[in-house]
């Protein structure tokens, strides 16, 4: 399936409009999957503001994101427009302290997009 320009623009807007953008199953308040929940909990521990998108509520976005990120599963974490990884990678980066560094770099002011 080839994603439409509209969908690509929506994804671009979300990942460029938020320093920390998590595409997940369920919501920040009610994660619908243990892996998504794990990443939400890590981001809370990192005390970083983050935005989430519930892919269960939007099948078209769910499919398009797999292509966009070249990644078959969720959650998918983006920091400053860059794909960071899924639950396993985010967990490893949290434990090693790499995630904290990435997030600190992301909090530096950059030119607003959109």
């Amino acid at each position, binding site marked *: 399936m080839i994603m439409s320009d509209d969908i690509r623009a929506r994804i671009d807007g979300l990942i460029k409009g938020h320093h920390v953008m998590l595409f997940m199953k369920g919501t920040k308040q009610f994660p619908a*999957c243990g*892996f998504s929940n794990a990443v939400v909990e890590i981001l809370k521990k990192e005390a970083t503001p983050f935005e989430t998108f519930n892919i269960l509520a939007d099948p078209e976005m769910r499919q398009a994101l*797999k292509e966009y990120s*070249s*990644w*078959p*599963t969720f959650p998918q974490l983006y920091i400053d427009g860059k*794909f*960071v*990884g*899924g*639950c*396993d*990678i985010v967990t*490893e980066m949290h434990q090693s302290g790499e995630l904290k560094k990435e997030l600190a770099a992301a909090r530096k002011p950059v030119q607003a997009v959109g």
Partner: protein
Amino acid sequence: MPTPDVLQARLLAAFPTARVEVNDLTGTADHFQAVVVAQEFHGKSRIEQHKMVYAALGELMTGGAIHALALTTRAP
């Protein structure tokens, strides 16, 4: 429904000299945990390593047969 043996065979086909461990986490043949230690991962980022594993699993990953795969990858 794929079994751990099926996943292991796929991964060994892609990474012949790798150490591969696959466990069925729930006993329902759709939630798995895999550890892959492969020469091919030298010089690759974690994202690239995971993508290589997903590519090796092909339609098992993309077709919905595998609902979840907790993945640990590294070079030996």
